[in-house]
């Protein structure tokens, strides 16, 4: 068994590989193609079943200077599309053969159009995720979209569509979500055993790893973390929400924990666990995946919810994880996260749950203000609440 440090070192190397060298190596090794997708949710099972490597693309973080990317966006647009364009224009995405753009927000939707014009030889698909959750209407629509996508990706990769291949992929991703859920459960119960930045890297490794390899990777890390001698500290337990698309810098996650906050739940890379629980292997696998999206998806700002249940869901998440408060961490100019925040704040205040908020960009380099804010929030909770 590898040590915690070895797992983290491997995940860290993949995190910093913004040229996707590991994807190129996988393609050379297997002779197959890779399909990238932007946050938040994309049906990775379909990509996997088509014999392709699903690649979750989360921008360039703070690792690439944005020069060309800025030319395509106004100043009031978030950082993620800028760095994604920068990566593509600098040739770092050349090894990715297909690009999926889910309907997370207007910016990502428009990015799909820009991609078609900028890279006409690449396979580009806009994923119009259902916002109507009626089983019959949305189920038929989404299953149809998934069937088209599967057929097109199989054609691109030179494979034959097959229900057996789909079921195998559904099972692989269900196993992966169980492993991710175990890691999240460890974070919720004994967060000192798996520091937030470490757990984040371990989950992010799944952005580029084949799914079955990633599942074994998480399980190995969990076993190593369980055996590691790490002291419990007197930290506040917080839920972090709002960071589901453009990702916070790794140092920001470390800063939050160093400032005295155990992150017992977060929505970083929530796309990796967008579906809760296993997808049924009975019946038509495409139908099963479509129904899982309608019935088993997490509450998230990029999914329409007509009856205000997201607030209730956040309150329940706080209670389930025994969190002392909530930190709203949203990317600057992130419409979905920031527009939803007042509704969530109302729900928290009704429930008497303390909260604080700040904004970030993926390339943020100064953390002192956030450190002070998180630290004083933690002090306030530990000393003046029932925490």
């Amino acid at each position, binding site marked *: 068994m590898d040590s915690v440090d070895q797992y983290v070192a491997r995940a860290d190397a993949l995190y910093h590989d913004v040229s996707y060298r590991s994807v190129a190596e996988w393609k050379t090794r297997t002779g197959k193609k890779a399909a990238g997708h932007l946050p938040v949710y994309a049906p990775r099972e379909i990509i996997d079943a088509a014999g392709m490597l699903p690649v979750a693309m989360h921008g360039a973080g703070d690792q690439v200077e944005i020069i060309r990317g800025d030319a395509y966006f106004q100043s009031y647009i978030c950082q993620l599309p800028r760095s994604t364009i920068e990566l593509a224009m600098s040739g770092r995405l050349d090894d990715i053969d297909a690009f999926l753009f889910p309907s997370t927000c207007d910016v990502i939707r428009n990015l799909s159009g820009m991609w078609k014009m900028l890279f006409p030889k690449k396979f580009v698909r806009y994923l119009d995720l259902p916002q109507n959750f009626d089983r019959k209407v949305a189920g038929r629509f989404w299953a149809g979209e998934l069937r088209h996508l599967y057929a097109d990706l199989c054609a691109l990769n030179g494979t034959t569509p097959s229900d057996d291949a789909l079921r195998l992929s559904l099972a692989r991703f269900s196993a992966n979500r*169980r*492993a991710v*859920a*175990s890691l*999240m*459960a*460890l974070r919720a*119960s*004994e967060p000192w*055993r798996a520091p937030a930045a470490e757990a984040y890297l371990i989950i992010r490794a799944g952005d580029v790893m084949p799914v079955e390899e990633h599942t074994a990777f998480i*399980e190995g890390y*969990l*076993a190593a973390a*369980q055996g590691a001698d790490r*002291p419990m*500290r*007197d*930290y506040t337990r917080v839920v972090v929400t709002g960071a589901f698309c453009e990702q916070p810098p790794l140092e920001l996650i470390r800063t939050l924990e*160093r*400032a*005295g906050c155990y992150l017992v739940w977060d929505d970083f890379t929530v796309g990796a666990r967008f579906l809760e629980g296993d997808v049924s292997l009975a019946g038509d696998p495409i139908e099963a995946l479509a129904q899982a999206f309608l019935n088993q998806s997490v509450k998230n700002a990029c999914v329409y919810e007509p009856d205000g249940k997201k607030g209730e869901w956040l309150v329940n998440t706080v209670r389930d994880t*025994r969190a002392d408060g909530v930190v709203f961490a949203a990317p600057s100019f992130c419409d979905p996260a920031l527009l939803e925040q007042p509704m969530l704040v109302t729900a928290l205040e009704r429930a008497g749950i303390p909260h604080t908020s700040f904004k970030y960009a993926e390339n943020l380099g100064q953390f002192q203000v956030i450190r*002070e804010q998180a*630290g*004083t929030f933690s*002090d306030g909770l*530990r*000393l*003046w609440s029932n*925490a």
Partner: protein
Amino acid sequence: MILTIGIDVGSSAVKAAVVASPRNSGRTRESSKIVATHTERVRRRDQRHVIELAFDEALKAAGITREKLGYIATTGEGELVEFRTGHFYGMTAHARGALFLDPAARAVVDVGALHARAIVMDEHARVLSYRMTSQCASGSGQFLENVARYLGVTLDEVGPLSLTSAKPEKVSGICAVLAETDVINMVSRGIALADILKGIHESMAGRFAKLLKLMDLAPGTVLVTGGLAADEGLTACIQDALGKTKLSGQTVKTNPLSVHAGAIGAALWGAFRSERLASRPTVASPALAAV
């Protein structure tokens, strides 16, 4: 009794305080006793090494071993302390320490090596508001230490000399570079050391009074804490500066243990948290069994 230690990691010195607190005394801990204190200057040494030294020396002075401690609390840059139980932010720790040293304290002026901050609190040491000096060094202890070095006086001599000044010379209150230029000019003009030092004290005190004035400050004691708390010349100037504002009913004081206020406050909060944590259930991780 619960024995706790507070470690205040500053940029020029690490302060440690061992405190013994009666059990079940909640947040107040009025009858807590300071068992030992220790200050270790950093002096260009590795800060982690200095932290270990301060910790060991404080324990030695208290006559206890590490195992006897119920909580190792840090403040300042205490995130460097890997063996800590918990960390408290500077204003939280200084407010608590100040209230312990002077129960009438309702505000704190914490003058550290790199910056200063004013804290307003209630009678339970709950921080109500705080303000910090801006990034410029002219309101900091390091600035005063530099000037003292240029003038050839020790920090211990600065306060008494300042108190003897009859005609303080005005110094720039905005910029450390300009202030240092002012000082050089004053030396070349033959201005007395006492007048230069008091001018610097007045400049610093004016900045602190402005910070306090920005907050809703109730009558009571303003306790000076941090590395410059022992400088009675500075304390006197802060009192004068406050008198020139519209604030009233504040008495500026210091305490022989003021330099340790952050460490004492952290240790006291540590005792409170130690009891709180003991009452919390330990939760196992059922999910791990599934992997």
